[in-house]
């Protein structure tokens, strides 16, 4: 089972499923099956949103355009999970 297919491959569920802006929460352990992305794989816009995330963790990004999906883990200055 490949844990790391792009959303183009059909899984995990595409980001457009987000009803509101995605948010990030710090995690210490990577949940089994989670897709993991390094910060450098993200678009400039998503990088900017992540680097300037509100204290609540909410990302200032259009949910329809980000290629992040719910449950993705991003390796940044800490590991964060997209919710």
């Amino acid at each position, binding site marked *: 089972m*490949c*844990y*790391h*297919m792009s959303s183009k491959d059909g899984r995990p569920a595409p980001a457009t499923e987000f009803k509101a802006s995605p948010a990030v929460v710090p995690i210490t352990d*990577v949940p*089994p099956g*989670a*897709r*993991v992305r*390094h*910060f*450098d*794989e993200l678009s*400039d*816009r998503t*990088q*900017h949103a992540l*680097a*300037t995330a509100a204290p609540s963790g909410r990302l200032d990004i259009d949910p329809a355009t980000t290629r992040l999906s719910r449950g993705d*883990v991003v*390796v*940044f*200055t*800490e*590991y964060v999970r997209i919710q």
Partner: protein
Amino acid sequence: MREIAIHINPEYKPRVMSQSYVIVGDGIAGASAAETLREEEPDADITIITDEGEPLYNRILIKEFAKGKLPAAPISIHEESWYDDRDIDLVLNTLVTNIDPEGHTVTAHDGTEYEYDKLLLAIGGTPTQLPVENSDAEGIHHFWTFQDARDIKEHIEQADNSVVIGAGLLGIDLAAITAAQDVEGKYLMRGKAWWRYALSQDGAEIIHNALRERNVEPVFDSGVDHFEMDDDGVVTAAIDPNGDRYPADFVGIAIGLNFNTEIVEGTDIECDTGIHVDEYMRTNHDDIFAAGDITEFHDVILGERAQNGAWGSAKEQGTIAAKNMVDYGSEEFRWVSSYSITHFDFPFLSFGHPTLGDDSVEAKYSDTEWRRLAIKDGKIVGGVLIGDLSPQTKYKKLMREQVDVSGQLDTLVKQDFQLEDLEGAAAEQ
């Protein structure tokens, strides 16, 4: 004499034979090219040949695996079935040793010949070895492949003390691995600062302090003269050019990359440190393209030849190469590369070509916040941001659009810099 009537169908179009594409290298550049080729040419024959024993994995996450923070599973990007599903022939464990541009063939180490209509070389680089005594001792590691990361992880988990050599973006990964694995370490550098070609002393000091907090001690004006090893050929210490001895049972070396140009050296494909390509990723041979770290490409932003060593750039070059292999001239490579460090509790990002330029401007805002921009002919050509990455998109935009910022350098490094702060033509961009 019998007459034969020949009916010519005006709709008839001669059937174009499907193209055959061969890609050497299944890193991110080769794999993204294969994916794009399949999208653009559903009927083409596509073969991807790699000397590695596993299909594409996430090279920029293997450091997290070696740190012991990330399991192996999420590092894999493609399983073999990914290639089967797309009818792409994946040939593993196969080193291409020869290219015949006239005959349109490549030959592998086992003598197998592969014919191509169009060839893509996405062959990256190999870590440079330190040319000093005992540098082949057991316990000395270089870092490029997933297998290297497995070996490093296994070894560092049992190590007592370490030495890292190479004051650049890969060296710091090795230092961060020793730190994450709680192994006391010395980080030997030439000069007085980490990545001294891109950072000033002020910027580098932020990194030095972060290393010290993690029990990795930067050692300046140092390097390696030779290694000592025991009777079993296992490394025991690094001796620097000053004669200082640093005991180590783990050594990591990252002093640069040798680009894998050997296979083109016997041909007339133009190369220098990398393979020369134009902005469409084509070499001086119409049917041979190159993508990723291996290219010295015509950088349309910089206006000269450049080389990138970053994941995003390699991926984009693979995609652009594929499009131009199908339809030459269809899309140029216009890209501002970036590369971040995620080992510390403050972010770090370098973009463009921070080691180039004829001028620079920098500012320090706090103990963990600093910025430097490299300027050439009045335009931004690169930069390094530590602590606050929010201006990244603005600087990249100015760089991409080649905005003349001369006379306004101080404005650029105002802490809350906005594009509207620029005056004159620059502001209109």
